[in-house]
């Protein structure tokens, strides 16, 4: 397992985003994480097709029954929407 350290020397939890390629809040979230130098994985769900799309939508639903975007996983925390303060808090920044 890769362990990232944050700016304060603490351990950075893994970050995963479920996003849409067209969504302004999703773009802002990616830009915000980039500006913090935080590594993350993301999936643009609107670009998926077939079974992969169905499977990923089910995955998003588990974390966020509204299936809205971005759905952000930071360690065990689930954040729905681009909420800067919550993201910072979950990252320990």
């Amino acid at each position, binding site marked *: 397992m890769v362990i990232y350290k944050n700016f304060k020397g603490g351990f950075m939890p893994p970050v995963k985003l479920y996003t*849409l390629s*067209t*969504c*302004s809040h999703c773009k802002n979230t990616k830009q915000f994480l980039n500006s913090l130098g935080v590594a993350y994985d993301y999936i643009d769900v*609107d670009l998926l097709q077939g079974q992969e799309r169905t499977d990923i*939508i089910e995955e998003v639903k588990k974390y966020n029954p509204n299936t809205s*975007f971005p759905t952000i996983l930071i360690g065990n925390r689930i954040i729905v929407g681009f*909420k800067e303060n919550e993201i910072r808090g979950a990252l320990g920044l």
Partner: protein
Amino acid sequence: MNEQELYDLLKKAQEPKGYFFNKDRERVTDLLQALLLNKDRYGYMCCPCRLASGDRKLDQDIICPCAYRTQDVEEFGSCYCNLYVSKAWNETEGPHPYVPERRPQTRLPY
């Protein structure tokens, strides 16, 4: 239709109804380009901030301007995407509160 033409068309149609484009022109450009992209993809301008099903009937409530815009602008001063806002919202310095998803889960086609 290009982004500028769409901008001009919608501005003329929506401002008299009290719906103004976000003063952040870059964000508006991004969103209008996304609407044009969705028009190419699906045949209609589905909300760029929501996952389209590709079935016009099922997506009817999220075709821009979506069925939730009126309530969202009334309550939060902005639609879900921050494309359309009230005059007051544009005149207030941010950060503005996040507009939560109003679309009920029962309307989700997936």
